[in-house]
């Protein structure tokens, strides 16, 4: 894992001092809320329906046990004893007092953490593959690149007042576990003629106008990457729309001028920017890469004993193959039946930290699906890990099943929401509580957003649910056929919306159609793509 040097630490410490000063000026009345807003937002502090919400960055979703324990400590000391892991691999706290914020940031800084650029119209936390460093299918570990981008984008003087927020994802595997092409910039690291570089996709996103990012450059060399990204961002900063916040994301610019024209403008800007000498030497990427060296694997290649049937089910569902023989990737579901997707109590956070320290070379990951990963668990330890998880109510064996729901906070917390998301997630999970039934349905990614901003990624759901306000009543639209994976697609609305119970019934009917029509080992998504909407529509509305 990356470790701060004195420079990194000084930057974060200076940020704490700066934000303390800003909060002091706000509380003293030297600044209006309108003037304070962009400053607090650039530091992840939102004013929600009931309280301030603080979002803490977990760069590319990677953290160690010491950092994880700090997250538990903050939940315990400053919030209501829990935290919420987000789709940007961050954590947010929903009940924060403004006057505590500087102290929280100061505590975070002691473990090399911060809340820098977790909101605002700037470059947000860089996200990545939660299996980075452990996946068998990766070309290289994407995390050093993500760290390089974290540093480049931190307090970027030109790109801190962009037309709108800006999200970058980096992957390096053929399987896309980070919804890369649904980002403002998606980077897929590839090897060409022996050298590593990035395929650059620009202009994807969800929100009210979902788009899949087109490829803008098939290969940018490692030592050109920052110049190229500066060029991408500069064209956007200059020409992205600022007249309408709903049309201000880079996807709209690219949609309006076309990918070819955007590519041409970026190429012209790059030819200029490249002369400025802003690219770090490859030695900097190598310096960062050294922090991500493989752990000292020493476990024998043994298969775990499957005698305990509950353990065997969890093993099959939540444990994934590792690139190192004798090891496995453990997914910890934060989606208990009837629970709030992504929430964990401080006690659970501590348990996960302890397990990482004892069994996963001190490392954890947060996934964009709001779960936690122990990336380096020896197979001989899997049973012990499972038992500890079970005791902490963290052993739900539902990874990628219908109850592994992504949901935004919705109208229970969010000032932008039109409808509640959490109760819908809870009702659907409860309806499908029978694990045999869930396993029979197989991989089924269900995602719920409480408004058109799509924080719950409903466009990318095999089944997506969008909550809208219809004449003062919560109404839920269903979409089918989305995917955030390498088979990326945007879901389509299937017809008129439903009330809360109606949407749960409609989802259930859709699964019955799937069961009747599936062939071989087709997933729900595959069957839907093959047979089309008609049979589903007939069953649901007929």
């Amino acid at each position, binding site marked *: 894992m990356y470790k701060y*040097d004195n*420079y*990194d630490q*000084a*930057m974060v410490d*200076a940020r704490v*001092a*700066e934000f303390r*000063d*800003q909060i002091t*000026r706000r509380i003293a009345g*030297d600044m209006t809320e309108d*003037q304070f807003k*962009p*400053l607090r937002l650039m530091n992840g502090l939102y004013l929600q329906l009931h309280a301030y919400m603080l979002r803490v960055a977990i760069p590319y979703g990677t953290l160690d046990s010491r950092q994880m324990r700090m997250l538990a400590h903050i939940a315990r000391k400053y919030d209501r004893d829990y935290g919420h892991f987000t789709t940007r691999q961050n954590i947010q706290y929903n009940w924060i007092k403004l006057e505590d914020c500087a102290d929280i940031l100061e505590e975070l800084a002691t473990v090399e953490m911060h809340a820098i650029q977790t909101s605002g*119209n700037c470059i947000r936390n860089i996200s990545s593959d939660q299996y980075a460093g452990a996946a068998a299918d990766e070309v290289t570990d994407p995390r050093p690149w993500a760290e390089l981008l974290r*540093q*480049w984008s*931190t*307090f*970027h*003087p*030109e*790109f*801190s*007042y*962009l*037309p709108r927020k800006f999200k970058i994802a980096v992957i390096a595997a053929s399987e896309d576990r980070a919804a890369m092409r649904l980002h403002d910039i998606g980077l897929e690291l590839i090897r060409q003629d022996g050298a590593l570089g990035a395929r650059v996709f620009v202009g994807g996103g969800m929100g009210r106008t979902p788009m899949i990012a087109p490829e803008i450059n098939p290969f940018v060399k490692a030592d050109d990457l*920052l110049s190229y990204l500066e060029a991408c961002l*500069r064209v956007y*900063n*200059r020409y992205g729309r*600022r007249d309408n916040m709903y049309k201000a994301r880079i996807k709209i610019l690219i949609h309006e001028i076309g990918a070819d024209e955007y590519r041409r403008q970026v190429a012209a800007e790059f030819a*200029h920017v490249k002369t*400025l*000498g*802003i690219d*770090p*030497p490859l*030695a*900097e990427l190598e*310096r960062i890469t050294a922090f991500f060296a493989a752990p000292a694997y020493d476990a024998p290649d043994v298969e775990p004993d499957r005698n305990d049937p509950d353990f065997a089910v969890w093993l099959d569902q939540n444990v994934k193959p590792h690139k190192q023989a004798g090891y496995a990737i453990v997914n910890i579901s934060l989606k208990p039946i009837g629970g709030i997707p992504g929430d964990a109590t401080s006690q659970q956070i501590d348990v996960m930290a302890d397990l990482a320290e004892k069994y996963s070379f001190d490392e954890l990951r947060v996934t964009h699906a709001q779960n936690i990963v122990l990336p380096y668990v020896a197979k001989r330890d899997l049973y012990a890990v499972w038992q500890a998880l079970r005791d902490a109510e963290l052993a739900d064996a539902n990874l990628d099943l219908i109850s592994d729901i992504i949901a935004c906070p919705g109208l229970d917390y969010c000032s932008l929401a039109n409808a509640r998301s959490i109760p819908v997630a809870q009702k659907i999970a409860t309806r499908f509580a029978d694990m045999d039934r869930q396993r029979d349905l197989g991989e089924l990614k269900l995602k719920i957003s409480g408004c058109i901003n799509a924080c719950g990624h409903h466009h990318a759901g095999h089944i997506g649910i969008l909550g809208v306000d219809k004449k003062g009543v919560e109404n839920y639209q269903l979409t089918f056929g989305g995917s955030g994976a390498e088979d990326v697609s945007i879901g389509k609305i299937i017809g008129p919306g439903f009330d809360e119970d109606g949407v749960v019934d409609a989802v259930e009917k859709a699964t019955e159609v799937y069961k009747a029509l599936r062939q071989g080992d087709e997933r729900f998504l595959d069957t839907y793509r093959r047979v089309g909407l008609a049979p589903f529509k007939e069953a649901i509305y007929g």
Partner: protein
Amino acid sequence: MVEFRYRADEVTEQPSVTLDAFLDQSNATAVRLEPDDDARALIPFLDRLTLIEVAFPKYRDGRGYSAARILREAGYQGELRAQGDVLVDQIAFMRRCGFDSFAPESSLNPDAVARALDNYDHAYQGAADSVVPIWKLRHG
């Protein structure tokens, strides 16, 4: 009114003209750029300009940051002024993008500005100022 200026030369008294007016008659030495204007239109004339004023009608509109860098990257040495909705907490970024004078619409507290400019000893990325980026400090 210019409240903060980080240059040794004399303040230009000549009022600035719009970009269109400048491109039409072009004997002015001071120009004002609105957010919509293309800063690159000035590149052929940078030698004889002593002041370029960049308007920030709203602090949220960050186009002026790119305009400033583009002008400095093209070799502009004259005064580069940020005018309008310029707030304490934008000034450090503006300095990094090449602005060296500030005419905020609402007067700013000089102590707060000094603190804002003094807060960070380093920067991660190269920009239009003389700050040596951290990666360069690391690798000599």
